[in-house]
């Protein structure tokens, strides 16, 4: 492990330091006084404590790994650093000045730059225009036109410094994700950023692109630019971070020095409890195959296909890294996207699905990842959302019967313990957990045979999570086949009866419950086959 960062430093030889007064060695830089301090930062949303008493200081040239599960508070912390959200309590100290809150402008002025997970670039403009948007060099004079030549002269050295293989006049639309990331980093450098915050920068990159990015981070470090590296990919954190801060439930639960940064230590701190405590064993052995996928191909990975059998009464976890094709597979099964090939059988019958309505009609339901965007009509009441999928059941001669609708909603509210004053309440005012229950209630009022859950508990608090797992198990025990897509390792290992792992559009392995381990799931997720013979055998057998 020690050798990796050293290699990174060597590669950065051609880089010139930014300014002479900062001409120190990387090691000195790391020990320099912090220029940014977050002191006792807390953030409370109505009913949710997102952050409490978080302390974080950043010194020049330091690479800080920030890890934590989904919902641990990482993004809230980053929003505060970027000036997007004001903290409820605490102080932000930049150099000597103290702020109770920052605006986006303050943050930019302080030299804080973001490389977002969803890159914020203008696809219709070229690279140079993106880097200097709003700050273009001008000719001056009456018309004050943009000086394109000067613009390119400024951008070219930045791109060269980052080792980019494209020029300033390249349209952003034709760049790959990794190349776009470099454009974002160039933008940060052009702003004289002192701190670059990277949110899951490698989640969609290939191995060689990732290595290239880690080199860039080492270059930044050498030039006394600090980096906060947020990632679920702990190996990369291990490789590039000087220290690691672990967040859980809005609190800092661990600070690891360079020497202490180890995969297992991070996992233990992130999760903080036994992985298997979530598991509710099934009441009966699984039944026959309910959903049979034969060589299903999606547009995301046209050259790969998925063959998978999902049995009635089981919860099959579908694990994999972001971008491994899981959501695309679900979308193709449910008829949102057209599939390129293969056959889908539901209870032995071939399914012809052109749009979601066809799937719904046959008892195949999808509970989407993004409740607010895809799951609910937020302006509708709880009752109206629940009945929307199956209005004929509540309608006579095409007229919606409010009584029938309310009665069913009340039943579901009691059954799923939806905490809401009345079923006439608008769903926009509900908490994430209760919103998810409303989405569930929608489908449970019908007759489910297969339910695909895409990230069923993302952004949901721990108590409601447990209730949703219980509901999933109750459904499975009633014979429903459940496919659970999840990026939450605790959830995948804790809830599933079997785990199928996807890597770059194919199933890289299937694990039975007795072989579950985080390590095995991760190995399969990054495309390695398992070394242990028994696991290997079963993976092939699935």
């Amino acid at each position, binding site marked *: 492990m020690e050798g990796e960062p050293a290699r990174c430093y060597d590669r950065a030889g051609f880089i010139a330091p930014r300014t002479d007064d900062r001409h120190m060695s990387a090691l000195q830089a790391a020990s320099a006084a912090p220029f940014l301090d977050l002191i006792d930062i807390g953030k409370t949303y109505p*009913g949710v404590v997102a952050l409490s008493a978080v302390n974080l200081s950043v010194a020049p040239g330091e690479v800080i790994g920030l890890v934590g599960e989904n919902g641990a508070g990482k993004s809230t912390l980053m929003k505060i650093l970027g000036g997007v959200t004001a903290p409820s309590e605490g102080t932000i100290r930049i150099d000597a000045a103290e702020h109770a809150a920052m605006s986006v402008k303050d943050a930019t002025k302080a030299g804080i730059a973001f490389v977002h997970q969803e890159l914020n670039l203008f696809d219709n403009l070229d690279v140079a225009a993106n880097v200097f948007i709003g700050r273009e060099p001008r000719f001056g004079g009456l018309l004050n036109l943009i000086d394109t030549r000067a613009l390119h002269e400024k951008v070219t050295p930045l791109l060269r410094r980052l080792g980019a293989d494209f020029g300033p006049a390249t349209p952003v639309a034709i760049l790959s994700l990794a190349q776009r990331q470099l454009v974002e980093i160039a933008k940060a450098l052009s702003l004289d950023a002192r701190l670059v915050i990277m949110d899951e920068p490698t989640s969609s990159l290939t191995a060689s692109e990732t290595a290239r990015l880690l080199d860039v981070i080492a270059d930044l470090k050498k030039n006394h630019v600090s980096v906060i590296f947020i990632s679920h990919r702990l190996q990369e954190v291990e490789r590039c971070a000087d220290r690691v801060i672990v967040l859980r439930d809005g609190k800092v639960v661990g600070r690891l020095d360079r020497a202490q940064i180890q995969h297992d230590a991070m996992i233990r701190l992130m999760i903080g409890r036994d992985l298997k405590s979530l598991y509710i064993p099934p009441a009966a052995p699984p039944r026959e195959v309910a959903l049979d996928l034969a060589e299903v191909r999606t547009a995301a990975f046209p050259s790969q296909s998925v063959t998978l059998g999902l049995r009635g009464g089981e919860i099959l976890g579908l694990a994999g890294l972001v971008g491994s094709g899981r959501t695309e597979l679900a979308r193709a099964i449910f008829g949102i996207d057209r599939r390129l090939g293969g056959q889908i059988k539901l209870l032995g019958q071939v399914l012809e699905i052109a749009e979601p309505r066809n799937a719904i009609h046959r008892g195949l339901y999808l509970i989407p990842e993004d409740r607010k965007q895809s799951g*609910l*009509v937020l302006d509708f009441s709880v009752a109206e959302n629940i009945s*929307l*999928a199956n209005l004929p059941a509540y309608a006579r001669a*095409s*007229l*919606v019967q409010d009584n029938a609708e309310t009665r069913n909603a009340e039943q579901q509210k009691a059954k799923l313990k939806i905490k809401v004053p009345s079923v006439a309440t608008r769903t926009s005012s509900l*908490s994430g957990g209760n919103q998810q229950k409303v989405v569930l209630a929608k489908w449970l009022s019908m007759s489910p045979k297969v339910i695909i859950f895409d990230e069923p508990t993302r952004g949901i608090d721990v108590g409601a999570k447990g209730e949703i797992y219980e509901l999933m198990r109750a459904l499975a025990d009633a014979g429903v086949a459940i496919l659970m897509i999840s990026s939450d390792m605790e959830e995948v290992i804790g809830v599933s009866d079997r785990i199928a792992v996807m890597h770059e559009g194919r199933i890289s392995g299937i694990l039975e419950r007795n072989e579950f381990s985080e390590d095995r799931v991760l190995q399969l997720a990054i495309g390695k086959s398992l070394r242990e013979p028994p696991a290997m055998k079963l993976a092939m057998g699935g």
Partner: protein
Amino acid sequence: MTTTLDQTIEQKQHTWLTSITSNQTFWVVIAVILACIFLSFATESFATSKNLYNITRNVTFVAIIALGMTLVIITGGIDLSVGSVLCLCSMVLAVTMNAGYSLEIGILASLGTAIIVGLFNGILIAYLGFPPFVVTLGMLSLARSLAMVASNNTVVFQFGPDHDLLLALGGGAWLFGIANPVLYMIALALLTGFVLRWTRFGRHVFAIGGNEHAATLTGVPVRPIKVAVYVISALSAGIAGIIQTGWLGAVTTNIGAGMELQVIAAAVIGGANLAGGVGTAFGALVGAALIEVIRNSLGLLGINAFWQGTFIGGAIILAVLFDRIRNLRQSQ
């Protein structure tokens, strides 16, 4: 968790009064009433039965189309073609009857034209993914041009054997001295209100405007419903065209020019949200009424007609301002 729940319950227990006063349509109704009271005292001619008869009848054409427009706006769309479609449908009716066909045939031809236009708009928007603005902007130009072609750009004022029947249909007052167009408007408003509130179709219309993606994933037949909404919008323009022809007794190729903007203004003043998901039939009527009262009062008060646009524009912005203030207050 319990405290959050209690807070939520508390927040939800709006009194009857606060829920009414936070409603944009309510304030527009108040504005209309106040304007009427003021005008009754300020002028002698406002509260005469003749003037009120005029106002109510003038409201109807914009209001009827605003009902259809409200459906389109609730789904998050827009229909710029209604003024031209009104013209085209009127012209088809006029030309058909002028050629010696009966009133029934004329109406069928006219409404058939509206349905074809609506299907064209709707299919392009729902199935081919055209932006509603573009399709209906094209139709705005297209429909009026077709009306000119159909009539050779002449004024039609002879409606064949059923001439008198048509004029009675639009210009008469068959019930309690209320102008016929007003009766049609009330009937159509009740129908629209009923459909929006009680039917599956109405529920689906709101669902599409509230969250089209979620509606698709929930199995709502999004595309057929979008087509239906544009057909209804074109039909409402066609119906208004037929009634207006009967009332005016003549059709020219420039009737309904610029009307789409009045119609959209009426819907928006009445509380329809151009972002989709919100709107009522009652609001469409009230919005149309406010515009007409403003227009009428300026004339009666002897204010130069050039000021009309300023007042109507002000009313649009003021009505939506109430809504924005409420939203801002909620988000804080």
